[in-house]
C-alpha cells in the first residue's frame, strides 16, 4: 500500500495535534507511516513528521551517525534548509545518536524571545519506547488531573528540559516517537515530575 501524501499526512497531523493538546496521550502513526519507504536511516514515523513539517519556509537539523546523508536527502525531498543546531526550527534527534546528544540538543536548540516565543525549536526525539506507565507525571494545560507516562530514553532529559523551559513563555516543544510508531508530545507548558 502506498502512502497518500495528502490524507495520511492529514490524519497523522490530527493525531499529533491531539497529542500536543492533551499531553500524555499516545497515538500510533502505524497506519500512516508503515508504508513509507524512503532511504533515510530513521524511524518511518520520524519521516512522516518530516513530511508534515518541512518545506522551504523552515530549517532543520538532524542529529545521528549518518547526519550528512540524511540531511542531504531530506533537503532534496522537502526543500527545507539545513541549519546549525542553535538556529533550526525542527531538530531531529535520531536513535543512532551519540551518548549525550539529546541533552546537547535540548540545551542548544533555539528558544525564540519574549516578543516571539513561537520562534523556538521543536525537537523530535527517537526513543526506545513510549508507554503509559507511571514513571513520570505530567501536569499543565491539556491535562485534567495528572497524566502518567513513561519515555524510555536518556534519563536526564527531564532535568535538561526543565532548565531549558524555565522562563515561560520561552521553551521548546518535544515530540517522541518510538520504533513501534507510537507518538507522544510535550509542549512547554507541561510540568514533568518523576515518581519516586
Amino acid at each position, binding site marked *: 500500500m502506498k502512502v497518500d501524501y495528502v490524507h495520511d499526512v492529514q490524519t497523522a497531523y490530527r493525531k499529533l495535534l491531539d497529542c500536543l493538546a492533551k499531553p500524555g496521550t499516545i497515538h500510533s502513526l502505524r497506519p500512516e507511516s508503515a508504508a513509507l519507504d524512503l532511504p533515510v536511516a530513521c524511524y518511518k514515523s520520524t519521516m512522516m513528521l518530516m513530511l*508534515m513539517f518541512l518545506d522551504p519556509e523552515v530549517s532543520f537539523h538532524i542529529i545521528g551517525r549518518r547526519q550528512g546523508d540524511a540531511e542531504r536527502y531530506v533537503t532534496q525531498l522537502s526543500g527545507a534548509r539545513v541549519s546549525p543546531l542553535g538556529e533550526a526550527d525542527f531538530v531531529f534527534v535520531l536513535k543512532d545518536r551519540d551518548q549525550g546528544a539529546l541533552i546537547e540538543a535540548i540545551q542548544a536548540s533555539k528558544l525564540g*524571545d519574549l*516578543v516571539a516565543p513561537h520562534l523556538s525549536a521543536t525537537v523530535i526525539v527517537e526513543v526506545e519506547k513510549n508507554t503509559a506507565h507511571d514513571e513520570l507525571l505530567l501536569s499543565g494545560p491539556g491535562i*485534567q488531573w495528572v497524566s502518567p507516562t513513561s519515555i524510555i530514553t536518556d534519563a536526564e532529559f527531564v532535568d535538561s528540559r526543565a532548565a531549558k523551559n524555565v522562563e515561560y513563555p520561552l521553551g521548546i516543544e518535544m515530540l517522541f516517537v518510538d520504533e513501534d510508531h507510537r507518538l507522544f508530545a510535550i509542549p512547554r507548558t507541561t510540568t514533568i515530575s518523576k515518581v519516586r
Partner: protein
Amino acid sequence: MNKYNFAFFDEQSKREIRRALLKAVAIPGYQVPFASREMPIARGWGTGGLQVMLAIVGKKDVIKVIDQGSDDSVNAVSIRKFIKQMTGVLETAETSEASIVQSRHRVPEVPLTGEQILILQVPIPEPLRETEQSELRAKRLHAEKEYSGVWLSLFEQIMKYGCTATGADHPTMVHERYVMSPSPIPRYDNRKLNDCAALILFGAGREKKIYALPPYTKVESLAFVDRPFVSESMHGKICRLCGAEGVFLDESVQAAGAGPFYECNDTGYCRQRQSSKSRLDRGEKSGD
C-alpha cells in the same frame, strides 16, 4: 473529477497553518502570526476560521458551522457548503455529532467533549488594540505581561457606566500569562472556555493570527476584586419555542403593546430540544 485540491489548499499552505497551530497550542493565548491565504470569501467573513478548518479537516470528519448560534445564516451556509464542496465531509446541525465545529461569535450550548475541536472566527485578535495601535508595541506589552492598558480601559467603563461595558469580546487571562481576546462571543460564553474539554482554535485571517486554548486550560475573564465579572442575565427568561431556561437567548420585539419574546440563540440546540419534546409528546421514549 474534482478540479480542486482536497480541502482547497495546496499542501504547503496547509503545512504553514499546521505549524502555526502547533505553536499556538503550545503557548495558550499567544497569537502566532501566519501567512494568511487569499480565500474565495471576503476577509472579515470568517477566512481565519475557514483556513484553520481546511488545514485540519479530513475525510472522516463531521462538521458543523454556525454563525451567531445559527446553522442557517448566510455566513454559516456559505462556509459549510464551501467546505463540503472541497472535502466531501459530512455535515450536521447537532453539536454532539460534530468532530469539528466552526463558529462565529458563539460557543455551542451543548458541552463540548475531548474528541471535538471548536474553531472560532476572530475579527480582531489583539485585545490591546483599543489602547495600543502599534502592533510592535502591543507585542512588547504582551512580552512584558504589561496589561495596565486593558485594566484601565475596564476601570474607565466602570467609572462611566457603573459596570464593564464590553458586551462581547470581554478580555480573558489565559494560563495566568496572556491576555486574550475570546473573539466576540457574549460574556455568557466566556465561562465555557475555562477548563473546556475540547481543543479551541482561533483564526483571524485578516489580521494573520492564530491562537489556541488546549483542553483544561485556565481562562479567567478580567475583573476587579470589588467588581466581579458579570455575564448577561437570562434570569426569568424562557425560549418560546423549546422552553429552555438558563441558556443564551435572543430577544425579539412583538407588535405594539405586547412584551418582548425570547428564543434560543443556538438554533441546533433549540431544534434538538423541540424534537425531543415532540417525541415525548407522542409518547415515544427519549433517545429512540
